[in-house]
């Protein structure tokens, strides 16, 4: 991970002193390994707490909708695309924002590392160059960070911010990769197999809605799950209701989801909710040739109509 902490602090202090912005949204060091806390710095002294490393996975664009005043925000590739979606959807105005673009080398997946450690508890985790040094009560182990990235980061094709006022580092190389390898496998299952697969996938779901709340695209004042007139689905962990929630949320973010992975990261029971959103991302790309948040000149396909929209279901 490039040494962004220094450049973020410098930029934040400068912008605050110049009164270019009222506040800076970034991260400060967390209290447990592999975690950082989203932080709003209003003064140069507070700006000194800003850090950036491989544990800055939560999409900070989540804190933008309906924000008043001017604000600077640290944004990696996926975050910047979420900001574009917010601009298109009038959740914030461009003049309010000063985007500190961060070319990203991927976020660390603490669960992958935990699996490798097989129950041994991590007390300290430090990044050094391309490695993560992890230590516990009676062990120390070094990992190649590139092998333990979050899944969405491992298949990321837009690591560089698409929108920024200032780029805090050298752009990184983008990769060519089939993002839909896993979804294609699921697509090829028989319907009964698929149903079993999805039932098992969401079985641990406790309907806490952390996935929805961590998502920058989910900002409805009243989410469909909370409507009561009519009520669209039940609130228990009934398997059908639970699947309905996940399917419908995936549809609601179709064409707007930038695969930042915040949903999976936020889930307290570790459900791979991105399997739903990835399928819709694939369909939107296939049908409309559209990738969320790449340009401010095109609206997401599901909130605009064009006469040449594909309509394969019409005879």
């Amino acid at each position, binding site marked *: 991970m490039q040494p962004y902490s220094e450049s973020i602090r410098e930029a934040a202090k400068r912008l605050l002193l110049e009164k270019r912005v009222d506040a800076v949204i970034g991260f400060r060091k967390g209290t447990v390994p592999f975690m950082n806390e989203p932080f709003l710095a209003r003064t140069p002294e507070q700006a000194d707490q800003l850090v950036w490393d491989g544990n800055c996975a939560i999409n900070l664009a989540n804190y933008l909708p309906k924000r008043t005043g001017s604000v600077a925000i640290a944004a990696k590739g996926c975050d910047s695309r979420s900001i574009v979606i917010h601009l298109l959807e009038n959740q914030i105005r461009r003049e309010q924002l000063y985007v500190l673009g961060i070319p990203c080398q991927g976020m660390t997946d603490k669960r992958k590392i935990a699996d490798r450690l097989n129950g041994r*508890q991590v007390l300290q985790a430090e990044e050094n160059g391309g490695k993560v040094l992890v230590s516990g009560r009676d062990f120390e182990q070094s990992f190649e960070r590139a092998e333990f990235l979050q899944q969405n980061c491992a298949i990321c094709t837009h690591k560089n911010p698409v929108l920024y006022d200032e780029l805090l580092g050298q752009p990184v190389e983008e990769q060519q990769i089939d993002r839909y390898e896993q979804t294609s496998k699921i697509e090829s299952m028989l319907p009964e197999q698929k149903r079993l697969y999805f039932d098992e996938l969401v079985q641990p779901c406790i309907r806490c809605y952390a996935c929805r709340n961590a998502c920058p695209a989910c900002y409805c004042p009243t989410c469909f799950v909370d409507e009561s007139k009519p009520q669209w689905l039940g609130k228990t962990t009934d398997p059908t209701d639970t699947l309905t929630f996940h399917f419908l949320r995936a549809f609601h973010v179709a064409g707007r989801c930038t695969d930042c992975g915040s949903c999976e990261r936020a889930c307290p029971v570790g459900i791979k909710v991105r399997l739903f959103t990835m399928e819709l991302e694939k369909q939107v790309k296939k049908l409309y040739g559209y990738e969320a948040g790449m340009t401010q000149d095109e609206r997401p396909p599901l909130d605009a109509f064009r006469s040449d929209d594909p309509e394969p279901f019409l005879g």
Partner: protein
Amino acid sequence: MSDIYYNAKENFAGVIERLMGRYRVYAPVKQDRCHEFAPLRNAEEADLGFSNTRLSPKGLFHPQAERMFEYSLANDDPQAGIVKEAQKDFSPRVVLGVRPCDAKAFDLDDANFNTETIKDPWWVRRRETTTMIGLACDSPCSTCFCTSMGSGPYDTAGLDVLLVDAGEGYAAEVLSEKGKNTLSVTSGWTPVTSAILPLTHKKKAAEQSVGIAFDPAAIAKKQMLELYNSPTWEEVQFACINCGACTFVCPTCWCFDIQDEVCGDKGERLRLWDSCMFPLFTLHGSGHNPRSQKTQRVRQRFMHKLKYYQDKYNSGPACVGCGRCVQACPVNIDIRQVGRQMAAQTCSQPA
């Protein structure tokens, strides 16, 4: 003076089997990369080498969805429209391997579900028919802070029996009549009269290895309004995404919503986990929402757990230091840090 017995670990599968013969036994079961309390299908499923479960065992007494009542809406049913209590299975259960923090949490929850004037029938009956066999903690996690919250890795509050890992076997401290009766259906226990000194050392070592968080007594002493109006909430609340993960994994969070679900001509009245973190939680029928702002909701959670509960019941905070919220929070809001900030507020002199 409670009785202490010893049983070899190699006998323990047999102990569990005997328990399963008479009770529905719940124990920590490995599920993917975590453990959860689940009904045992066989003795081998129980994994007492766990640290703690990801979700708290509160679901065993206060399920995520509790069917309270049912009713028929069929036109030709003479009983239509009559709300009846849903039938439940209250046959005796054993919760095996529960950690002292979680056991104490149930005692704290009693303040809500089992009072002089109001008794939740399902909670009370489940508590009555369940034996709590706890397992002392020898390797507390770095996120644990039970000792700061009035509990501890060898605490006996809320338990009928406390098991302690004694190397080749388990020592069992019998703490209640219910615990004694439950253990008596198993075999292989020998009374321990001496040589429990090593266990006292283990207890001390475990207690000392738990991180110190903050002093809840300091918070109890503060003026409530001063804490309520503190400017530090502005900073605490920023990161929060009101996802509710903290409340769902917390063993002392009990808030619920009540809803009817109707399918065809049958209806059920359900009690469902709700969360003060959700904006809808305090939405009035009139449309007014006294906690419409995130700051108010975040403040509410910490004030309830660390201040209001102390003021109301005079028995310590509504937190047992299990650390699950610290692990589950996707934005690393740390209750230990918030508690420290609350405890550090300077008292203003009364006017």
